């Protein structure tokens, strides 16, 4: 809204260009050089009464951010379960298989609960659409869930050990896909803080998943068998932290949403917990059972905070038209700048 109003506190909302002649604007004739990075965005940008351009993400935070966490935990746990199964670490294998089954069961409950029409959840398997990460994910879950269940049940009951091994190995493959696909799931939207991080988000998510699963292993398995869980946790924590850093550095304006408000607090908590958990795992994970459990819990909590923080950053970026308009306007300017460079010098009149 480009109007000013007289209030008790003086004139508010006056734009510097309010005397400009309407219609004198021609896109691409502004003084902006090609390739100029919009690191400090314009304070002024057009919007319709400051209302968001996008409609708000309708997903419940507890359901979908919770699903992002649980899905990652389940997927990476299945990987660790397979490793432990093959290399003969039965306590770790059992713990990881049970973690995977519990987490994926929770995931499915959260996903169905979030539907507007939960009774129609089977419609998810009505078609297979590679253009829809949710469709791909539904089929992944439909394949992975029973495998994770079979692996856990076979392990607990000792029934059908060969089938159990096969299910364990297949669940490891499916689990990696489940842990990674949730990044395209949220990035394949118009939400700036998600879409603009689509290159790094899968690495944030698999890192976070490995940290969580490793943490669960440290929490649940005896120290003697948990070395691999510690390694996976630390490697995951490092990957998650580096990928997050890179994502926020490359994202542009929407990266702000990861620093501010609730998302900012969650991301800060995530980094603190993840770094603390990883440090604990390295220094004390092999010496003290209590320290290992605490480090594992910190890693789990850190992973959850990452997912909730990413979710909140997304909703915050959808709620503010700035994150939609300013980068798009900059993109148009950069494109038009290419043309204007070849024309007469840009004039300074700006109206609208």
């Amino acid at each position, binding site marked *: 809204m480009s109007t000013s109003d007289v209030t008790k506190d003086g004139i508010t909302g006056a734009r510097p260009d309010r005397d400009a002649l*309407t219609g004198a604007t021609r896109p691409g004739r502004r003084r902006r050089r090609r390739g100029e990075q919009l690191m400090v965005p314009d304070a002024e940008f057009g919007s319709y009464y400051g209302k968001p351009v*996008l409609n708000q993400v309708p997903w419940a935070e507890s359901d979908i951010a919770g699903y992002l966490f649980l899905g990652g935990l389940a997927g990476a746990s299945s990987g660790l379960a397979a490793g432990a199964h093959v290399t003969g670490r039965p306590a770790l294998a059992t713990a990881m298989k049970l973690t995977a089954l519990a987490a994926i069961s929770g995931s499915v409950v959260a996903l169905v609960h979030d539907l507007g029409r939960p009774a*129609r959840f089977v*419609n998810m398997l*009505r078609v297979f659409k590679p253009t829809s990460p949710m469709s791909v994910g539904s089929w992944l879950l439909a394949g992975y869930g029973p495998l994770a269940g079979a692996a856990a049940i076979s392990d607990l009951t000792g029934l059908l050990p060969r089938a159990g091994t096969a299910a364990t190995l297949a669940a490891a493959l499916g689990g*990696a896909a489940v842990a990674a696909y949730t990044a*395209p799931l949220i990035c394949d939207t118009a939400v700036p803080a998600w879409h603009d991080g689509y290159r790094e988000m899968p690495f944030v998510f698999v890192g976070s998943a490995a940290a969580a699963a490793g943490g669960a292993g440290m929490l649940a398995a005896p120290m003697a068998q948990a070395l691999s869980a510690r390694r996976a946790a630390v490697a995951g924590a490092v990957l998650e932290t580096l990928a997050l850093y890179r994502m926020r550095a490359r994202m542009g304006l929407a990266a702000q949403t990861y620093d501010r408000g609730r998302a900012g607090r969650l991301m800060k908590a995530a980094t603190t917990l993840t770094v603390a958990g990883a440090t604990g795992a390295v220094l004390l994970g092999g010496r003290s059972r209590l320290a290992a459990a605490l480090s594992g819990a910190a890693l789990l909590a850190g992973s959850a905070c990452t997912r909730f923080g990413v979710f909140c950053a997304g909703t915050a970026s959808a709620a503010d038209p700035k994150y939609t308009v300013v980068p798009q306007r900059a993109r148009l300017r950069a494109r038009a700048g290419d043309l204007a460079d070849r024309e007469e010098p840009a004039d300074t009149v700006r109206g609208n």
Partner: protein
Amino acid sequence: MTLDEQPRTGGEPSRKGFFTDTSVCIGCKACEVACKEWNAVPEDGLDFTAMSYDNSGGLGADTWRHVAFIEQRQPLGGQETGVGRTTTTVDLGMPLPRPPGADTGPEERGEFRWLMSSDVCKHCTSAACLDVCPTGALFRTEFDTVVVQQDICNGCGYCVPACPYGVIDKREGDGRAWKCTMCYDRLGAGMEPACAKACPTDSIQYGDLDELRQRADARVERLQEAGITSARLYGRDPHDGVDGTGAFFLLLDEPEVYGLPPDPVVTTRDLASMWRHAGVAAAALLAGVALAFAGRRR
């Protein structure tokens, strides 16, 4: 190959669309009312937003046409709505209302203008809502419009954040996603959509998209010639981020002033790259787990 380039075989209807010429919109909201009446869209709040005469705020599950009101304190002068009209009038000698400043020049005119625009689903050529819908509830009709099948939609809500324009939304209490259907039922019967039918100034024009684009090109050219240099078409370009829209607009200011994204891009344009990155990440996870078990047993 985009929709526009696909050859039409016999019997298939041509691509239909809306051309909303906001330069002649008078903000009467007849389109909003007609849409609600025809499509039985529930009430969407009866309060004014306290910002303008806009009382519907923006498009959503229960608002399929939304009239935006923008007050601008700018020395515009009057908008001459008769531009391009070829019909001649007969002077009856009656005193005629004259716009302020018409006799004295621009300096006497009010520093004020109202922009009004009836927003609607864009029925994108490359529609993100349709791409991401996991159930196939959203589909493309024989008129190349995008419609939700309400008996299929399970309310996953994925289409809502996928839409770069903020059009589609989940209906409270109902749980499913709803948006403009371009009156699919009326189109099938050879009728024009309710909003276009009700529009008293033909600000909303419905028809074959090819023809509407030609009409819009001529209209914007005439406005430019008449000195309204801020007139521009939005969604007309078949090579934009959504490969052109089925419902496009003539605007008198930058799109964001009307609450429209200035350069929307269908999110699935990057999906192949997203899958590649996710594939690498999944492989990295498996490799990392394998490495964690490598070496000396303990």
